[in-house]
């Protein structure tokens, strides 16, 4: 599903250069559930952005679903994001003016058009069938994240990327979210890569990758 070869990312900071990722080689098979861990500044968020085609590497190759995507134009990248990647963010990133249902429909907006029935199904799957017309501000943090999960899943992408999905939630809501993600992963066989710094959350995954200073230091399979 994912194959990274010598991925390097360098940011210019003034006249100096900051190497955030330094020669990452990584493969993730279809249907895997992987946790990325590491101290802040280790490059895990940058790696996730690269995996999600929000950013492009300075050097190296990235094969997503068999296609080399590291040299695509911004329009082609947007298309890849729309078709292959579902994002779940730490701060949910729902549009505050839209209802839960409209937010989920927005997930399909840029890949073939919206479908209200599928959006309702997705919300039902995350247990929010009763709250489809609520605005994000009328929902709890856990509920908002469930809407975000429905939004990511509604277009049935092969790859889901989650950036600290439980980081803004209390531990009970966090566990609920992880239960939903694990069961969706089990049911739909979707590939899931997740950044977290909570070990108990990482333990929901079958494989934990530790980053430090832009390099993979350890890899644990559970």
């Amino acid at each position, binding site marked *: 599903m994912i194959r990274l070869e010598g991925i390097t990312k360098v940011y210019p900071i003034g006249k100096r250069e900051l190497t955030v990722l330094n020669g990452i080689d990584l493969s993730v098979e279809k249907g895997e559930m992987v946790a990325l861990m590491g101290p802040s500044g280790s490059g895990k968020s940058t790696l996730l*952005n690269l995996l*999600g085609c*929000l*950013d492009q590497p300075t050097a190296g190759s990235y094969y997503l679903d068999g296609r080399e995507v590291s040299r695509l134009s*911004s*329009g082609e990248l*947007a*298309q890849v*994001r*729309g*078709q292959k990647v579902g*994002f779940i*963010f730490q701060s949910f*990133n729902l*549009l505050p*003016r*839209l209802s839960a249902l*409209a937010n989920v*429909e*927005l*997930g399909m*907006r*840029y*890949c073939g*058009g*919206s479908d*209200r029935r599928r959006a309702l199904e997705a919300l039902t799957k995350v247990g929010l069938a009763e709250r489809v017309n609520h605005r994000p501000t009328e929902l709890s943090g856990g509920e908002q994240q469930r809407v975000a999960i429905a*939004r990511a899943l509604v277009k049935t992408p092969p790859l889901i990327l989650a950036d600290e999905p439980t980081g803004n939630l209390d531990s009970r809501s966090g566990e609920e979210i992880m239960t939903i993600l694990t069961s969706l992963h089990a049911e739909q066989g979707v590939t899931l890569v997740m950044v977290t710094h909570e070990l108990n959350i990482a333990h929901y995954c079958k494989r934990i990758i530790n980053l430090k200073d832009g390099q993979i230091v350890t890899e644990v399979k559970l």
Partner: protein
Amino acid sequence: MKKWLEPLTSAWVGIATHRLRSFLTILGIVIGVGAVIALMSIGRGAEAQILSNIQSLGPNLLTIRPGASTFGGVRSAGGGVRTLTIEDAQAISEQVSNISEVSPSSASSLQLVVGGSNTNSPVNGITPEYMTINNLKMASGSFFSQQEYQSGAKVAVLGATVAQTLFKDADPLGQQMRMGGIIIRVIGVLQSKGTSFSSSDDAIFVPLTALQQAVAQPRTPQGGHIVSAISLTVSDQAQTQNVIANITSLLRTRHRLASTADNDFNIMSVEELASTLSQVIGTMTLFLGAIAGISLLVGGIGVMNIMLVSVLERTREIGIRKALGAREWDIWSQFLIEAAFLSLIGGIIGIILGWLVSVLVGRSGLITPVVTADIVIMAVSVSVGIGLFFGFYPAWNASRLNPIEALRSE
């Protein structure tokens, strides 16, 4: 939700969320479009009204007056030069083709005495053809006949205003009045024309032969009977220019003018007057419309300003949309549609406002404004065009945002 509908819904939600802000933003467009609609419709109404007034004089009417022709400017010394004669009128009638009727007329201002009261009034000495040539219609009584003209009958036909002034509510028909040295009898009253171009409402019409008895009429050195104007109708409107040319050359010959000399008369056609006036009004309308258009420009800048603010406020939303797969084109078109939608709403409110103003002006009774489809279509497309033009840069700004930075913004 259809794909093209989503930006519209999104735009509508945005407008509804910031009601006051949206209202203030489109106010410039509302005022601009409203002013353009009101001014254009009033201008069109005025033009139509003036043209119909002129047409009521008779579309085939030509009037020849003495004096040098200074078309488009002020006719100088028109009253001072006395060159036209009854004999000229006869010659035109006999020698120029495509003319149906010719009537010389002589205007004097005379004292009228009715009962105990004195009034001064313009009196036109005319021939019977004058009535058809000038499109006059009787309200009561009748016009004088060819026979009455030939015999110099002392009869008069009154304009509507004059009849009212002289006889108040009494029936003027059959009444006698003193005019200069003679006593004349009223035989008819004209319908009001209600126009400022024809003075028929304010005048008294008597046979030219009767006027000659009341006041001594001047003569030329050659013995011609001087008149103050000759009016005539062209039988074939397409021949108007030919008729004017033929009359000109005939009169130049009769007046023995050297080939280098200017005409000592001028010929005014109603057609020409109408086209000149409608050109003047059209220019005025366009000029006023352009001034109103400045408000549209200011409105457009307001739209641009608010769109820039909106892009800034919604940076995170743009990031989210990009993460969901939106291409630059999607973001760009979304904000462009919003800007166009915003100013379209302004345009629609402006049209309603402008229309209300023109209806109010119409109520005043002075002018009947004409709101035509082309004005409305023009206003709508101009307002949408302004939205597109002034929304272009903010939308482009939005589309170029880096998704990672946009997602990080608060």
